[in-house]
């Protein structure tokens, strides 16, 4: 008799747990990788927002930047697990679209974070940095900092075909006031956003054009590598390095004088807005839509007239990583 009561109690508790879990809103977050500090911060932001909204966060990531198959699997798993909304930073902006279509057809809200899909309207909404604007800001800053001196520019880019790299590069050119192929661009090499590869690329560019005085870099690790190469060649004082990202280490590098200015972006904000939109959809059926610019701020300790910026104190308070 007693055993029966215990079993009944256990069953009731399980049922209650299931019911409780079924009531919880599930939001999924799929990042490109697990280890890039940018995505680590995004996940932290999503965790915090989910807790505040009373929702459950499921998270997953690809194994490496470009791991499309891993992200497809993650979408499928999350839809099966009953996620009402999925936030994704797509690794392959075209190839992920069919999976996103399927998820949306199943009634799931899909929001792209940080990187737009191709086409952009394949997702319900996009919360991202305007990467083009990020490039424009540092281009304008570099132009103002050069104060009319003839510029010899090196661009340390990402890798062929990746939209983020292309947008920032093109934005820099626009902000600086030059077109692609301009004679003042003396060297362009890919770095894959990697520190050591940035160092090698900068060394080779310096061999080609020893009088480089402006360096555009795709992100702060590449900038640090470029600085290392300039330092080894004894040229670090006369060269202006600008970058994008606004990670805490990058902002500290501005304080150290390694990077002159960086465009700071806000992964935390992207995640927060994403989770909030997902929970709102689950509760009210209201879908988020369109593009929301999560903001980009120029961070520098040497402000230039005509280019709005904030200092590193602000940068450190708002940084990620």
């Amino acid at each position: 008799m007693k055993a029966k009561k215990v079993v009944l109690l256990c069953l009731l508790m399980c049922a209650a747990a299931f019911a409780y879990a079924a009531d919880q809103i599930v939001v999924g977050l799929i990042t490109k990788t697990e280890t890039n500090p940018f995505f680590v911060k995004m996940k932290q932001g999503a965790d915090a927002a989910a807790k505040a909204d009373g929702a459950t966060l499921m998270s997953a990531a690809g194994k490496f930047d470009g791991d499309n198959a891993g992200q497809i699997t993650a979408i499928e798993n999350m839809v099966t697990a009953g996620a009402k909304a999925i936030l994704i930073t797509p690794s392959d902006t075209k190839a992920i679209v069919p999976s996103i279509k399927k998820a949306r057809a199943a009634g799931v809200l899909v929001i792209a974070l940080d990187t737009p899909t191709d086409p952009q309207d394949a997702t319900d909404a996009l919360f991202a940095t305007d990467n083009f604007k990020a490039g424009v800001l540092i281009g304008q800053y570099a132009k103002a900092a050069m104060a009319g001196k003839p510029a010899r520019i090196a661009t340390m880019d990402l890798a062929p075909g990746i939209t983020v790299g292309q947008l920032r590069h093109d934005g820099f050119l626009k902000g600086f006031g030059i077109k692609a192929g301009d004679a003042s661009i003396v060297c362009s090499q890919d770095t894959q956003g990697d520190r050591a590869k940035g160092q090698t690329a900068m060394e080779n560019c310096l061999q080609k054009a020893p009088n480089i005085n402006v360096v555009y870099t795709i992100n702060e690790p590449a900038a640090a590598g470029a600085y290392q190469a300039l330092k080894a060649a004894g040229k670090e004082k006369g060269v202006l390095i600008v970058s994008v990202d606004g990670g805490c280490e990058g902002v500290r590098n501005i304080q150290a004088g390694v990077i002159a200015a960086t465009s700071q972006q806000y992964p935390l904000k992207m995640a927060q807005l994403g989770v909030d939109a997902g929970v709102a959809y689950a509760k009210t059926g209201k879908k988020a839509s369109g593009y929301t610019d999560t903001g980009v701020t120029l961070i520098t300790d040497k402000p230039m007239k005509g280019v709005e910026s904030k200092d590193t104190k602000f940068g450190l308070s708002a940084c990620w990583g």
Partner: protein
Amino acid sequence: MSTQTAATASPGLRGLFAHMPPVATFGPFIALAIACTFFAFQSDRFLAGQNFSLILQQVMVVGVVAIGQTLVILTAGIDLSCGMIMALGSIVMTKFAVDLGMNPYLAILCGLLICVAFGFLNGSLITYVRLPPFIVTLGTLNIAFAITQIYSKSQTVAGLPDAMLFFGNTFKIGDTSVTYGTVLMLLMYLGAWFVLRETAPGRHVYALGNNPEAARLMGIPARRMLVGIYTIAGLIYGIAALLLVARTNVGDPQAGQTDNLESITAVVLGGTSLFGGRGMILGTLIGALIIGVIRNGLTLMGVPSVYQILITGILVILAVATDQMSRRKA
């Protein structure tokens, strides 16, 4: 494999050719010479002592990793975990020195030890549990990567003690600055070349790759040797970690992610067969230099980076095709 012709003691040209290795092994050197000549004509900045010193510095880390990779590939194995083991070693040695305030030499030793441990793990799993090298090193690649990220919290380690940066220091030969690290790399290649060519254990490495069963029957302690080779490879990755730290000035947990494929490319371009049993360690150095020269030369010419990748891919196919064709003839 170089065939020793019988002592047909005819001096002069014939005797000379009989003692030289077959033409196939000159392939990589010829390719390097062609590349250098081409770039020398394309840019007047290429043929400078300082430029060559730079190329050596740029291939230094992958070049050293490729020594370990060559040893492994000679036994018909493969090591996909090399880059990650190196990154783990670099994080351990830098964090121990900076965060724990450990004596830098002791910290370096700890870094080397963790790399040796992973090498030993690879060797043991492959030899005693008899798992395929591809799978084992795929697993240890991920384990080493994860440990690196967790321990470093994905942050780079800066503010390193001077002792750790020694191999980045330079000395002058005439007008050219040469780093101690590149000298170490060249010495390691010479050492490896000597051991593989002139010592019994070295020749046994080739035997293991050619025919492990025959090697065992010959009395070579095959299993012990195989574990030893992976362990030594681990030590070599540890030394590469120290060189990486000296070159970049930081402990970077994101480093080394493409080093496995880059080192395999250097080994293949150098004429070593992926099927084991044949190849020259100096060929690997030439292979690494070919990659470095092409990258440097194309940058000097202003050619976009994507073409470096294209040319490397074409060269790899050519190298493997040459190897296959010379195998068929033999």
